[in-house]
């Protein structure tokens, strides 16, 4: 697992998500603040819109849109973060490994 730290999920572009998949990542998990709690206004909402679009793109080539997911977790919600990870793992298990790897 590779952790990429960004100052705000609003920094994450569709391009970044797709590039990760292209390079063989099984999935991309975008974890940001709760709606309405963005320090910069609407960074997390933009991220959600982009994640939705990335899903559509991946579905189009049959890689599975569920490889990309957005979760809203604040810094204090450790339980919620664990649930998000478990959810992501479940989803990826269902889709299977990224066929672009190897």
């Amino acid at each position, binding site marked *: 697992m590779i952790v990429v730290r960004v100052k705000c999920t609003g920094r994450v572009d569709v391009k970044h998500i*797709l590039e990760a998949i292209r390079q063989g990542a099984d999935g991309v998990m975008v974890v940001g603040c709760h709606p309405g709690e963005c320090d910069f206004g609407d960074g997390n909402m933009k991220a959600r819109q982009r994640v939705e679009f990335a899903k559509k793109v991946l579905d*189009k080539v049959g890689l599975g849109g569920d490889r990309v997911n957005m979760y809203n977790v604040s810094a204090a919600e450790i339980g919620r973060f664990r649930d998000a990870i478990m959810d992501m793992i479940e989803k990826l298990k269902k889709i299977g490994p990224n066929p*672009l790897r190897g």
Partner: protein
Amino acid sequence: MSELRRRVDAITEAADSFRVRAFFTGEKEILEAGKFSKEEYERYLDYLLEDEFRRRLVLGVIREGNGLTIDEIAHRAEFSRLEVIRHINALRYEELAERKSDGLVVAKREEQRKVPYEKIKFIVEGGLCTGCGGCIAACPVYAINFINEKPVIDEDKCIGCGICNVHCPRTFFPISLIRESLKGSPVDVETEGVSFYRQAFTAQTAKEKVKQVCQDGGIVTSILAYLFDRGMIDCAIGVRKADEEWRTQAALVTNVDELLGIAGTKYTVTPSISLLEEVKRRGFRRVAVVGVPCQIHTVRKAEVYSSELLSFLGEIVVLIGIFCMENFGHTALREIVEGRLGVKLEDVAKFNIEKGKFYVHTMSGEERSIPTKEISVLARHACHYCPDLTNELADISVGSIGSSKGWSTVLIRTKRGEKIFEEAMKEGYLIANSLPDAGMELLQKLAKGKRKRNLEALSERAKEGKYATLIV
């Protein structure tokens, strides 16, 4: 390289392409403008993504090959030939591919590229704008207004999505591609100068009330009346005289009475195609469009390069094209009529171009004329780059050239045009005889003349480098 990797590369590039990115980024503004619903927005975004995806697949094939013919590309990409030509035209415009002198297509190295779909301001400033109004209909955020006979972009509203550029017939125009896709059966006659057609007639209206208001044979009005009477259209786009001085206004008519009120030709630029937006706003669907070649070109280009967006605006039932040698701005019209002919504009009852002369008929029954050669310098700049006299891409083309007084020359070009014309004839709206050879010869001569002259002007312009219409 595996098939999947090829597809993933293409879709990654597509998702990052200018049009997709611009439209995606502008979601908030587009939905706030309210022209397109959320559902339409999403459908169009899907369409763009799919379109760019397929375009990048074609590009991928071009990049792997070292100079390929169109047929080779079509074979390798497993796309139809027409679709490949469509994408190659766009890729050439985007400067991602080029066609070498031997006809082979190669990929261009991606350098620091300019914005591939720049807003159409440069077309207006370069004097290429035909004033058709297509950009106004297409703009998703109502950022374009028609001021002083040209489209003006409201920079505060513009989101830079480039849709105006895609819809503009003067950024690039795939005339041979459209011709190839409209043509389609052995019935077509291909004639030098007037392009392909199925049948050629000299025709006249059979309706007395049309005769009283029409220009020549009353063909356009009769066909539209037939379509209204049979309930085949909800509305028709044409041009109305807006004031006593022959200023014009694009008009959306919704029944035969309104139709009769706008019959007759006007010789001033009018952004008719912008009314497709009104068709949508007023909740109509099926529309007939009447226009000069540049206006018909706009609709045809949208059918090829932006069919999804066009389908939100309305369903085109028929395109009726008027022959056009050139057109004038209102100031130029005033100069001709008042300056050269000494007639006040408000005294004019009717204009006409016949046998190389521009005629003015006054209210008091007087007739004055001037050779069209002398007034052609007053025509709009954009007209000097238009090779099309006979409205080659319309379903039905109509004009006076080649027929005697009170009759119109009609070229039926497509199946859909043929069906409508024949039905209208059968139901007694029109009478038609086949066009005499002399009429066709005259039409051909004039059409060839315009084509030759203006293609030369166009290639001169291309030599200057920037912004020549790409006719491929």
